[in-house]
């Protein structure tokens, strides 16, 4: 499978994602410069973390004007897979590909630490290899992961199974004290209605190898692969 990894000015997790796709998954990965106008050749598009445009104004605010975003929107509308991690998630929100917005962490500080998240929906292309309710130990690293959405949209998200990950305790209880940034209903990751676009604040690529303190995130990538292969088989 071919993974396209989008690089905006200021993106800085592209090499980490590429390493997992190539070395751990054994798949092809290519960087896509943000000025490119087509993403047709790729099975899955990943918007990695970092600080696109320095994170100035609002995280993800300026990247949405890059030419590649039109191509990504096209790809997504046709059901193509798009995964946004951290800054990538913020870009998807700003671009309107996912509902809601991020505000500054309630601590007002950048937070880099391990968190626990619970798989709330294992029927997405990104979680199909996880078991229902599985708890992952996974790092976050962001200054604005405090997810907000209005009540109407929140209801839709909840009812549509679009909330894929929530911050929780090591044993899976979703409680405010395990929420590292103040996000609404402990939300850590959501999909669009169709389920082909996922945005998540935690970094699965940072926990995809034993040596990096665990492999909890690896199945995000393996799920993608599995899902793509299954779909091809159909």
């Amino acid at each position, binding site marked *: 499978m071919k993974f396209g990894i989008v690089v905006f*000015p*200021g993106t*800085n*997790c592209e*090499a*980490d994602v590429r*390493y*997992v796709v190539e070395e751990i998954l054994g798949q092809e990965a290519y960087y896509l410069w943000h000025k490119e106008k087509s993403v047709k050749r790729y099975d899955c598009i990943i918007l990695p*973390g*970092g*600080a696109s*445009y*320095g*994170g*100035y104004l609002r995280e993800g605010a300026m990247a949405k004007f890059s030419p590649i975003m039109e191509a990504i929107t096209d790809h997504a509308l046709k059901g193509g897979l798009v995964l946004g991690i951290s800054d990538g998630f913020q870009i998807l929100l700003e671009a309107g590909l996912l509902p809601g917005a991020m505000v500054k962490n309630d601590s007002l*500080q*950048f*937070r*880099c*630490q391990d968190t626990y998240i619970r798989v709330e929906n294992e029927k997405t292309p990104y979680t199909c290899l996880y078991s229902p309710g599985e708890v992952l130990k996974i*790092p976050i*690293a962001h*200054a604005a992961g405090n997810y907000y959405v209005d009540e109407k949209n929140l209801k839709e998200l909840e009812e549509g199974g679009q909330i894929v990950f929530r911050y929780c305790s090591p044993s899976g209880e979703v409680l405010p004290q395990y929420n590292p940034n103040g996000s609404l209903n402990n939300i850590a990751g959501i999909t669009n209605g169709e389920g082909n676009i996922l945005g998540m604040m935690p*970094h699965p*690529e*940072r926990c995809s*190898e034993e*040596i*990096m303190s665990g492999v909890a995130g690896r199945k995000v990538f393996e799920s993608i692969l599995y899902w793509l292969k299954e779909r091809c088989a159909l």
Partner: protein
Amino acid sequence: MKSETWKEMGLRENEYELIKEILGREPNYLELGMFAVMWSEHCSYKNSKNALKLFPTKGKRVICGPGENAGAVDIGNGKAVAFKVESHNHPSAIDPFRGAATGVGGIVRDILCMGARPIAMLNSLRFGSLDNSRGKYLFNGAVSGIAWYGNCLGVPTVGGEVYFNKNYEGNPLVNAMCIGILNHDDLARGRAEGVGNPVMLVGARTGRDGIHGATFASEELSSESEGEGPTVVGGDPFVEKLLLEACLEVNRAGYLVGMQDLGAAGITGATSETASRAGLGMEIDIKKVPLREEGMTPYEIMLSESQERMLIIPKKGKEGEVERIFKKWDLEAVVIGYVTDDGILRVKNGDKVEAEIPARALTEMCPVYNPEKKEPAYLKETRSFDWRKLPVPENMNKVLLELLSHPSIASKEWIYRQYDHMVGTNTVVRPGSDAAVLRIKGTKTAIAATMDGNGKYCYLDPRTGGAIVVAEAARNLVCAGARPIALTDCLNFGSPEKPEIYWQFEQVIRGMSEAAEALGTPVISGNVSLYNESDKGAIYPTPIVGMVGLIEDTNHIRSQGFQNDGDLIFLLGRTEPELGASMYLEVVHGLETGKVPALDLKKEKAVQELCLEGIGAGLIKSAHDCSDGGLAVAIAESCISGNIGAEINLVKGNLELPELLFGETQSRIIVTVDRNKGEEMRALTEKFGVPVSLIGQVGGEELKIKVNGISGEVINLSISKLEEAWRGAIKCMMD
């Protein structure tokens, strides 16, 4: 020229005379400014140069030693690491956020100049106490500045160290270290080789930032500096990120002859240094320099310290290619001049010549001084201080908790969770252990890195203190399973014009050199920061060491946390009746005095070799060195990190209880081995002639320490209680 002018610029009379002699005429205002900044202590090292010669700088892994923008050492597999530390003390005292942030930016560019990709950063901080709002403001500002810059750049900040002490109140220290990785073939140099080659200025535009920052760094801080001061220099990590990628791309493409960051002294520094290193000259036209502000004078342009700029000397004919790459990264790259053969740095403004100075005169011809030295009088008293006359507290549990919650010992999580310490997915051992470990992708190897300093030791015994700082850094690496390979240092001192301070300076360097020699860790780069004084006097003499070690096999990576129930705990080395200069005296008695613990470099080396061999043989499962707070604190930290208790039995011998528990005897490491490997461990220790004792066993949910001859447990605390004291302390003061 009015005599006040050169004085105001910080030059001495003999220097002014020499300048006239070199030029064969009176310098004009711009020329004088260029001399003043290049001949400031910060750029010329005129007061420190001779003492620095004492450092051992050679070793079989050294590819590039002091003199370049950063040092570089071989780490096998055709790869090398480049690293250096730099201070940003004075700017951080005035605007901690911007000051610390630009400090990070500056050291990153030094690494970048070597053709290396930055892969890790560390920092060393010294602040006054956190019990007042000014102290909190400075500390919080510096930490968030470092976080902002590093996080945005995407270089992980993996470690560092912090001490809080009143003597840094008026003059905090912010030292930043950066480590970069490169293939041997990609090594770049800061040289303007090749007559006729173009000289390009790339990156951010030039504004009126920090005119005369280098001179500022070479003066004592007064309360006046807080108000006006020079324009505060601001950084932009986003532009730095673009600059970084563009420079690496240009270097990889093979277009480069030389590359140099613009730091202190701006264009003046970068042009004269690159020309002088190559033994050539340079002609530039300041009309070509892209400016951020209107109406800038030649003087301002030549001395501006605007950040995120580099000087690039490409091969002739490659200007267009360079420009194209920078354009891709939304950056400007303009030719501002070319390399000449006459050795002169010629600054033109269109057709008008504004300055004409031999490049070498700026970089090499500043007079070098041997300041007066004198042993400080206080040492007599502090050395003979007798702690055995002090009352011994009843409750050692309380003492241990007090030590663990002192912000200098307590968990630094409040700091490092604000730093992205994982980006790059190499950080195998995260901040919080003795040293951070980064794996080298594509190989079996890893590197370990640490920063260490101890101003109090160096104040009370500069020579031993200097040696201890180096030894402790090496020991920290060894505990991570790494063989120390080289070091960088930042020497933070008061005014060298005071004989007592210069004496300390030289003694510290002697001590550091002896240790570096004995432990096989040459000094490959460094920085000197003098004039760290405020209304309240000079800071403690504070040398900071940044050290890097190599781990040949990632299976040998260790951290400090106790591992499994039943593991045996050994103490490598022996506790001596030493308590002077300890954190115990500071915390319990409010005393910063006494005799610094002795350091025997042969013993130190033997302990380190033993530890490395035990790790290599797969015997040692965890290792933690004893430093601030002594044995009890070290064991408590290993319990907390491993989230498991321990039962310890100690033999008192001729020691007082505080010496046994909290004394800071050097060359000691606490290691654990499997319960059935005790004999193997003993056999190994004989080979190295190191005194070793079995002091206890891992297990349970408490730390219990018994001492022979004393009934009951002198320490019995639950891990959660220890952890609460240790983890919450700084957070509690800051939130």
